[in-house]
């Protein structure tokens, strides 16, 4: 090993990161080279002198950290699954859903032109035969398809076929109706635990924002407001967060997800749940939003900051 090698490996040796074989060669060189030995000894002495004494964790911080498992580990508003989604996880609910889908499909097929139009003359002929065979005044079964309804009303065949085709061309209609949100006048549901936690924290978060303008407090508060449907305040806070390099992208994304107006918010029936991802992924190693713990909050994600900081 020559002096240049020793110089290159100086720190690795100083911190015991050099493999044993190289460490032996390094030490062998030091024994024969006064210059390198002096340089190494100087760094080694400095290192020993600058061993910083470990400070004890302040009691208040230790207490807050001890409470973290109970506070920070609560699911965040962004990750709480809505009640209906949780209910759908139940096996009975799944079975009911499957039955509903199958039933709807069968019903749709029955009104599709494939089964009601000219393509199914045999069935049409069968039904006509049944109708003609039925005695006058006998019990009329309830019409199950537009075709039958039309026939029951005495509509011409062409009109009923057109209605059937129209229905068959928009098979998603019943599902869209199912997905229509409840009107804003619907009685409000009890807030979830996470929402309640959010509401409880908002006062202290607002206080912190007023006192220190804390960006992380703004972020947590914005997430909370968004999760409980107070989109105006959420929008204001996200807009302010656009000035923060750390939260800029997440805030921008969140702003796009917020309803534009109060009317939108009402149409959304209140709580818009912003996904955890949308609220920003974690930085390379860090970051994501969350329910704030008792005293502090978890800002979403911290982007890796590499730029030197001048102060």
């Amino acid at each position, binding site marked *: 090993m020559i002096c240049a090698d020793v110089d290159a490996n100086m720190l690795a040796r100083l911190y015991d990161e050099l493999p044993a074989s190289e460490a032996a060669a390094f030490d062998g060189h030091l024994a024969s080279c006064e210059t390198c030995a002096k340089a190494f000894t100087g760094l080694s002495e400095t290192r020993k002198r600058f061993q910083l004494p470990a400070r004890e964790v302040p009691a208040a911080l230790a207490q807050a950290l001890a409470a973290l*498992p*109970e506070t920070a580990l609560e699911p965040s508003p962004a990750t709480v699954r809505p009640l209906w989604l949780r209910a759908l996880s139940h096996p009975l609910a799944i079975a009911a859903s499957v039955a509903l889908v199958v039933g709807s499909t069968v019903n749709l097929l029955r009104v599709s032109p494939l089964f009601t139009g000219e393509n199914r003359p045999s069935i049409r002929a069968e039904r006509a035969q049944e109708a003609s065979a039925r005695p006058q005044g006998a019990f009329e079964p309830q019409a199950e398809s537009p075709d039958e309804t039309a026939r029951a009303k005495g509509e011409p065949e062409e009109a009923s076929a057109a209605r059937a085709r129209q229905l068959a061309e928009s098979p998603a209609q019943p599902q869209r109706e199912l997905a229509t949100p409840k009107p804003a006048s619907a009685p409000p549901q009890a807030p979830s635990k996470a929402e309640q936690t959010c509401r409880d924290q908002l006062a202290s978060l607002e206080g912190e924002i007023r006192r220190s303008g804390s960006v992380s407090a703004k972020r947590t508060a914005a997430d909370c407001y968004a999760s409980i449907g107070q989109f105006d305040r959420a929008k204001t806070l996200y807009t302010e967060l656009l000035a923060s390099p750390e939260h800029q992208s997440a805030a921008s994304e969140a702003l796009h997800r917020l309803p534009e107006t109060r009317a939108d918010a009402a149409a959304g029936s209140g709580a818009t749940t912003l996904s955890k991802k949308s609220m920003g992924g974690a930085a*390379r190693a860090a970051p994501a939003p969350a329910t704030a713990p008792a005293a502090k909050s978890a800002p979403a994600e911290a982007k890796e900051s590499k730029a030197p900081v001048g102060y």
Partner: protein
Amino acid sequence: MREYQQGSKAAFRELVARHQRGLYNFALRFVRDGAAAEDVTQDAFVRIAKNFQEYSHQARFTTWAYTITRNLCIDQLRKRSHRNHTSIDEPGHAEAPDASPRAHPERAAQAELTGRRIEEAVQALPVEQREVFLLREVAGVPFKEIAESLGIPENTVKSRMRYALERLQKDLQELAELAGEESR
């Protein structure tokens, strides 16, 4: 960490107990402000709790945790640079070192003074050198992992560390000279 990833709160408590002192000391030396260091430490654990699913076990937990803390420290410094906040550099904010041999008040006072100047010397390092110094010295993160954490080549990390040590070495010499003058 694996146990915590499986939902064990007790495992998280263990993580907190094991790392709170290291993370707090790291933050304290990085942001140079006791209250800010407490905030950073608490935020760091909250982030660890919230982002545990992102921890992949490829890096050591310590490296991951200190990277989170380091990022939060950088944020703190940024905020402070915007607000021209007071810091530990100012009179009255520096905390006394732990060593305090009561039997020798003069020696205790000298040790305290030396300790404070050593702390100040570390705090006076440029932030790029200080973060590397603290990650290696306080956190015990190997150079390779520091490089991965900061996204810079390992040789750059070592160069920064070398500059930091040489600068501290120079400060130490000045401190020794000053102590010699005072004792005379």
